[in-house]
């Protein structure tokens, strides 16, 4: 079994209002349950916005801290799910389900190397 990172990319700015978001989160919960039941679910997380991020770089043994995300763009990594799957097709089919629940957000599927 290989593992795949399903990254959720979402536009910067405020999340949708609760009456839009809640049914989506309910569907997401159902999908996670289904992944668990299928033995595919490894880990899933939603992230706080990029404004809460801190970037660290090592400078001669000292940690240099910078406020904000590593890259600024119009979209950011909003959350991710790690699944295990027999092959890319299986991972893509979970990814498609996730994209369906979170439409119109884009889902990037990437194999985990180790």
């Amino acid at each position, binding site marked *: 079994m290989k593992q795949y990172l399903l990254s959720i990319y979402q536009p910067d700015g405020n999340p949708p209002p609760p009456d839009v978001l809640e049914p989506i989160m309910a569907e997401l919960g159902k999908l996670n349950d289904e992944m668990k039941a299928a033995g595919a679910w490894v880990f899933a997380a939603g992230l706080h916005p990029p404004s809460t991020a801190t970037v660290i770089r090592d400078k001669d043994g000292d940690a240099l801290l910078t406020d904000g995300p590593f890259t600024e763009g119009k979209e950011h990594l909003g959350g991710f799910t790690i699944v295990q799957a*027999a092959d*890319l*097709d299986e*991972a893509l089919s979970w990814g498609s389900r996730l994209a369906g629940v979170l439409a119109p957000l884009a889902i990037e*599927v990437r*194999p985990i190397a*180790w």
Partner: protein
Amino acid sequence: MTEIERIFRAEYGRAVAVLIRHFGDIDVAEEAVQDAFVTAVLRWPRDGIPASPAGWIITTARNRALDRVRRERTRAERESEAARAQWDAAAAHADDDMAAARAGWDAAVARAERDAAARADGTSAAPAERGLAARAERDAAARAGEKAAVVRVEGALAARAEEDGAAAGAAGDAAVARAGGDAAATGAAGDAAVARVERDAAARAGWDAAGRVERPGAAEGGLESAVGGEEGGGVVDDRLRLIFTCCHPALAPAARVALTLRLLGGLTTVEIARAFLVPETTMGQRLSRAKGKIRDAGIPYRVPRDEELPDRLGAVLSVLYLIFNEGYAAGAGPALTRDDLANQAIRLARLLVALMPDEPEARGLLALMLLVEARRPARTTADGDAVSLSDQDRTLWNRALVTEGQALLRDCLRRGRPGTYQLQATINAVHADAATAAETDWPQILRIYDHLAALAGGPIVALHRAVAVAEVHGPAMALAIVDDLDGLERHHVWHVVRADLLRRLGRVAEAAEAYGKARDLAGNAAERAFLERRAAALPARPEGPPPGAR
């Protein structure tokens, strides 16, 4: 083309497909098959061509690949020994410096305690025995290909702790007292060793997969299915799996085309690069990137399940059609057609029809290719200039291809599952039925375009439909349709169609401008020359439509 070259073209894809199934690695398969052909070139002229060239190539390639995998296993084992030696050296170095980090040490002690507890059957296992157990554990972890490097680091530390035996307490105190000394260096050496061990494990896992080949039954079964005539029965031809892998939608379209031509068509990287007019290094990178993605992302090597099949088959058909079209009207370069690509596409479509006889669209695509290919002798003059369909000498059309295309088409239309390729083939079959351009049954063609537009809307279909509209209802109605289409300004055919309609309507200045735009956008020199001739043939000054103009 020599006999061996012919066999290479015909059998390369089959051999590579069989080898990929056995070894699970495209590069191993390709290298082995190429090696086998090199051997064939040396031996066959002397010994004669074997009764079953494909069987000979596959057997030889399989043996080559097995040799290679064995060599790599030996090397991996040597490296693993080296890794162990390095590991011991790193550990010894750490001991000398008494520089184990406190955390690592705690883990080691905890592990040692846990091990001791596990063996609390009263017998105090000798330290050497426990050391062996720890190493065995470590090896088992590596063999299983587990990625828990941490476990192994702990294991090694635990082994050390056990080797130190009862002195652990005292040594621990000493270590803690001097902790932090050379921890970073130890860590780096340890990481290198772990990486080696992991590679070793991966190599072994690869070998395990390959090892299946050594089971005689499996090997023979594979060879039978590849060489014997079980196609269409219960056994899936490996080439069919390979087509679906090469045309996987997760690969970029250009990469699908290149991979298909390379792995199934047996074209070299240089040949593909030349056919698509890109530098060889670019094509080489495109191919190796695609193969890397197949390997690392786990693109499967199998025929898709029924529910996925329509989409996935569509992707395969469009790759073949893309190859054909690139051969039909070259996107760039001096010549109008590149016969070889068109022939490759037809060959691959024939293969697909043989492998999936119940798919009407595969048959429809082959019929379409044959009907269009039949016109090749009439499409250009001896000087290489393009000749439009209405001006072609139809006696030059290849009747054998027309007949075959029409028979295929009748056969798939009978199945009552029409699709875009079948409909496009039908349109070309109507053209083929007309002995002269004037006898063309345009109302029939327009009806098929209506059907096609309903099935697969889109501006390109609408543009081609407009040509039929012009023939049935006149150029004015067609021009209104064409002018209404959005997003085709960069598409040279749109300008060509507009120019012809404007010419027929006597709007000469606008026609000349449209021919000019079409010429600027046309991909090859022959087509540009054709459009320049068309523009030059326009009347010198504006006038009404010539008498009898349709």
